[in-house]
């Protein structure tokens, strides 16, 4: 009696069930006849054959294959449009033993992600790119891609792609093969079963090159998108073979596997605990001690500071001094500038956090300290200050309609005070003095250390010393609490 054994079946590294939907969990979301499914199978077959499932990381793109992580049971990261090569670089460098596959569509790789792919290829990064060229933006309903053929209709080229308007189809393999970095570049197609078998060999070759540590490999796969092309699956397959290959000839564009040397392993990242020493900001012991008692106990341990004013008032520098001093004090800090449209006369602000504990986000949307260097900034941010927080305002009086009872507000003409010291632009540091005096945060020593690093000239150091003293004095005088 005849018996049979499995010759070709579902790859082990596919999930049994795809948890994308509650029902019918064994079907992919791709349209009937879509090339993405075929390529998933080529990748899965290779992963099984090379025994690399446990160390493979698939970077899924934006595009129809955005859900690739539902199908392949490997490490998965879904990334921003076009940025897969940047993320792949990070994963491969930080985990050199992993096998990293950057899976990208033509809209993804050849339009929004052009810069990332060119530079990753040029650096010869040791990962593999599987590039699905279906000559269209599939997911978003059929806009022209850089790879759309001349004359091909799309929603954005309704009369067909016209060279005088949209230029020529972008030939990614040819473009990247002009660089020295890549080790292997091949273009294959899914136009019939012979082409698909060739594609299988190319995918395997490219991934093997990565396992050998040789460097950058890319396989472009001409792939059908029957839905957007408005063809049935068999017609679409023929169109790949008959039409796409005329514009995009198949073949190996680069093969440096013989002469390529194994890329040296990237240097290991230093352990986290070593980083303060490397940056020369604090040694481990003083860091912990400082973290235990840095802030005035009456004050919150987590300072969320918003500094805002006109460009040129030293808004960003004031934030930097706070953050640098916080670093010296052994605190966790973050400093996030956000610029107005015009740097000089426009408004600018920055977000500063100083905390005894790790910082989750550098954004400060509910500050407990507001340093408002002008009235628009006060108007804009006063409503966001947390009840019980501090507000320092650079002015002579609060406008009638701009006030709050539940926060502590100190109003001083800081800029004018700086002017009296001979340097109008030191108003920010006068304000800093008032902040330090009123709240008791950060020691003199740490602030001076920060200023010494940030301010290079002796003249300015002296001005800042005077400015800090003037600010402290002003805060002491009015008892610091002005209503």
């Amino acid at each position, binding site marked *: 009696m005849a018996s049979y054994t499995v*010759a070709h079946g579902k790859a082990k590294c596919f999930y049994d069930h795809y948890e994308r939907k509650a029902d019918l969990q064994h079907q992919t979301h791709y349209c009937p006849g879509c090339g993405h499914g075929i390529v998933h199978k080529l990748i899965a077959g290779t992963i099984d054959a090379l025994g690399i499932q446990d160390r493979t990381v698939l970077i899924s793109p934006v595009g129809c294959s955005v859900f690739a992580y539902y199908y392949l049971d490997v490490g998965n990261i879904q990334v921003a449009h076009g940025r897969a090569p940047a993320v792949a670089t990070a994963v491969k460098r930080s985990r050199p033993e992993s096998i990293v596959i950057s899976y990208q569509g033509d809209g993804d790789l050849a339009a929004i992600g052009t810069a990332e792919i060119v530079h990753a290829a040029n650096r010869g990064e040791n990962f593999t790119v599987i590039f699905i060229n279906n000559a269209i933006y599939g997911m978003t309903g059929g806009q022209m891609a850089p790879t759309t053929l001349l004359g091909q209709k799309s929603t954005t080229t309704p009369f067909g792609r016209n060279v005088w308007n949209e230029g020529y189809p972008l030939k990614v393999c040819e473009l990247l093969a002009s660089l020295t970095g890549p080790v292997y570049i091949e273009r294959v197609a899914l136009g019939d079963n012979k082409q698909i078998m060739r594609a299988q060999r190319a995918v395997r070759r490219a991934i093997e090159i990565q396992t050998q540590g040789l460097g950058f490999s890319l396989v472009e796969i001409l792939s059908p998108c029957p839905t957007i092309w408005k063809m049935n699956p068999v017609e679409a397959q023929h169109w790949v073979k008959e039409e796409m290959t005329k514009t995009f000839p198949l073949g190996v564009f680069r093969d440096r596997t013989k002469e390529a040397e194994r890329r040296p392993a990237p240097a290991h990242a230093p352990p986290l605990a070593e980083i303060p020493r490397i940056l020369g900001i604090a040694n481990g012991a003083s860091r912990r001690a400082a973290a235990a008692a840095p802030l005035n106990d009456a004050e919150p341990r987590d300072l969320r500071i918003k500094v805002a004013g006109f460009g040129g008032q030293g808004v960003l520098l004031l934030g930097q001094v706070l953050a640098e001093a916080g670093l010296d004090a052994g605190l966790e800090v973050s400093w996030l500038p956000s610029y107005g449209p015009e740097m000089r006369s426009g408004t600018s602000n920055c977000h500063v956090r100083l905390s005894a504990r790790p910082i989750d986000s550098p954004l400060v949307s509910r500050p407990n300290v507001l340093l408002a260097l002008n009235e628009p900034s006060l108007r804009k941010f006063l409503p966001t200050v947390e009840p019980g927080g501090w507000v320092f305002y650079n002015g002579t009086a609060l406008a009638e309609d701009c006030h709050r009872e539940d926060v502590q507000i100190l109003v001083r003409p800081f800029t004018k005070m700086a002017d009296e010291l001979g340097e109008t632009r030191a108003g920010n540091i006068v304000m800093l003095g008032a902040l330090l005096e009123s709240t008791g945060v950060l020691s003199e020593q740490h602030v001076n250390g920060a200023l010494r690093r940030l301010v290079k000239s002796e003249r300015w150091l002296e001005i800042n010393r005077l400015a800090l003293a003037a600010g402290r004095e002003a805060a002491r005088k009015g008892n610091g609490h002005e209503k």
Partner: protein
Amino acid sequence: MSGNPKPDRGLVKLDSDECKGCGLCVEACPPKVLHLADHLNPYGYHPAAYTGAGCTGCGICFYVCPEPGAITVFRLVEQKAEPKSEELMPAAA
């Protein structure tokens, strides 16, 4: 298999729930032993089906099919070969 002195070299199994009826396997099969069935599967597609004889086990249908688990291709185990664990008895063909 009585009455069939020479068993088929291959055997194909189609999972009609996973099939999207795209027809690529039907088109690609060299001996033309696949067709789209008259009935509809849960998605409303006519699933691919095996005519029941003549498969060579070439695997072409497997490669052209976009669905990971819709097609499994089996190959005849030579009589002298040791039976393997994943072996399968064909349904009466």
